[in-house]
């Protein structure tokens, strides 16, 4: 399991500079103000002027939530295959698409799973990255989620899933659909072990993921500004030939229709998670540090 230390899977949380940091300032797409990039990042990728949420990558999400230095990647060393030998009309084959996404994101896959502490409580995180082919769920995501659940059971940690996904990965055809069943089947292991599953829905949480594992949390939180639904707006509009309600599939819509427990501002997500975790504390491994050490030992053996 030494690969966890290797570059390909490791999420570099503490790198001081980023590729896109070519300029120090950026223009907010919401208020139009020029804002200092560093300030934006320090502010959870929220515009310091108007409060607009900018996109968070999976590594940024993890950084935002976990106790500093506590995150350890536990991904299985797998990447997408091409079982359908799928080629888009523009001639680009699926493996090329994957490769491009890997290069653009620096990630091996559309989901990062890892072990961490949040407020001292042991958690297994599974975090999707929307940049990676829309965070769509194919065989790799399905397997990594199952892997995360197995780890949560082994470590007696809470399972925290953070969704940012357009749904199933079309390029894997029926096998991506099957991941709905695969992930749902693993979820029972958490219930049997009396471990909490906290599902966090962000912008967007839709289609095949929303209609499977993301909707099966013990506690379901929606990040403010989330988009939550099964079918896309465009398809619905085309089908019913009517205008959609203004708040359709927004966080508020999901809350009012009983789909989520609470709406949480991004800057409060970590504290909210700690509040929730504290209520399950007696069921989790008492000393998170010990658990991590135990895992490391086993990994080396």
């Amino acid at each position, binding site marked *: 399991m*030494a*690969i966890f230390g*290797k570059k*390909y*899977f490791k999420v570099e949380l503490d790198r001081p500079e980023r590729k896109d940091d070519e300029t120090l300032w950026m223009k907010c797409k919401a208020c139009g103000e020029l804002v200092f990039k560093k300030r934006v990042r320090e502010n959870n990728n929220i515009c310091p002027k108007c409060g607009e949420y900018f996109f968070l990558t999976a590594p940024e999400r993890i950084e935002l939530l976990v106790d500093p230095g506590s995150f350890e990647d536990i991904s299985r*060393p*797998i*990447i*997408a*295959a091409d*079982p*359908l030998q*799928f080629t*888009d*009309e523009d001639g680009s084959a699926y493996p090329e698409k994957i490769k491009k996404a890997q290069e653009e994101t620096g990630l091996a896959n559309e989901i990062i799973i890892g072990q961490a502490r949040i407020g001292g409580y042991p958690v297994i995180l599974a975090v999707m990255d929307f940049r990676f082919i829309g965070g769509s769920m*194919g*065989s*790799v995501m399905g*397997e990594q989620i*199952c892997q995360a659940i197995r780890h949560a059971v082994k470590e007696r940690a809470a399972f925290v899933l953070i969704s940012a996904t357009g749904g199933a990965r*079309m*390029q*894997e*055809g*029926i*096998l*991506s*659909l*099957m*991941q*709905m*069943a*695969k992930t*749902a*089947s*693993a979820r*029972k292991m958490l219930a049997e072990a009396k471990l909490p599953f906290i599902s966090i829905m962000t912008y967007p949480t839709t289609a*095949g993921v*929303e*209609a*499977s*594992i*993301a*909707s*099966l949390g013990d506690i379901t939180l929606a990040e403010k500004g989330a988009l*939550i639904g*099964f*079918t896309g707006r465009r*398809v*619905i509009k*085309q*089908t*019913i*030939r*009517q205008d*959609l309600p203004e708040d359709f*599939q927004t966080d508020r819509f999901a809350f009012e*229709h*009983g*789909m989520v427990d609470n709406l949480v501002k991004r800057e409060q997500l970590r504290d909210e998670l700690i509040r929730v975790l504290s209520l399950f504390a007696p069921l989790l491994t008492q000393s998170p540090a010990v658990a991590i050490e135990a895992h490391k030992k086993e990994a080396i053996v």
Partner: protein
Amino acid sequence: MIYEELQRQIEQLRILSRNGLDLSEEIAQLEAKLAALKRQTVAPAPSPSPATELDDWERVKLARHPKRPYTLDYIKSLTEDFYELHGDRLYGDDAAIVTGLARFEGQTVVIVGTQKGRDATENVKRNFGMPHPEGYRKALRVMKLGERFGFPVITLIDTPGAYPGVGAEERNIGGALAQNIYELFHLKVPVIATIIGEGGSGGAIALAVGDRVLMLENAIYSVITPEGCAAILFRDATKAPEAARALRLTAPHLLRLGVIDEVIPEPPGGAHLEPEMTLGTLKEALQRHLCELLALPVELLLRQRREKFQKMGVYEEIPESSLS
């Protein structure tokens, strides 16, 4: 072809409405659907390839053939004493899903299936086989009813997908599908799912978590419709035939991918040409699988069901040597 059929049905409704029935709303609804269909509908497919194997797009057309046997046809022919059960006890009754108890070879079973309409009136009632959350919740209720009595569950799937509408989203269609999938893994009776026509995405798999998943030779089962796939990936809905081929959505492909357990052969030209033959073959297969499953202790049954789906998916292991 499908929209010619639909046009015919709208005419039929218009005739009906001349007899004093107010169907203006239904007609308007259908016309909207027709318009949507027209936008999506593809040019006629090329004539079948000379090979005996049908082209995937041909199969799509057969799977959607308006004369194809539907769920109620199967129920009528495969079972005896079918007693339909209605309602989710929460909100409503959804005629796009048919549920009930019946006798299959002397054994009482639960039947759950999506149901398309044969004509315009029935299609309004059945919503073209596209269920709402209350349909899936009814299905779950009745499957759990069967579980209490030890009745095995037989599902028949023929749906373009869950209905893409405002009400469905308001009543948490995604949550309903997720709940069904989850609960199906814990249903303490044998579950056999058969894709008899269209197996459309989440709306299909929510009834297809079975110990066995069978599929008719000319049925399709896919994460997205060929039209939808073409529109998104190829940015051109008329490329549906190409998308159909790319998606590997026919029974032979799915068998190879390990997603289904058995292909039920159809007569040349499709099940609708000789329905009795297909029905007979399916009956024999259901009987055989049911017999096997009923012999298993419940714990083993559930473990095997879970393991079956845990195995699904294809990915590449990265050898450690390739990692920097």
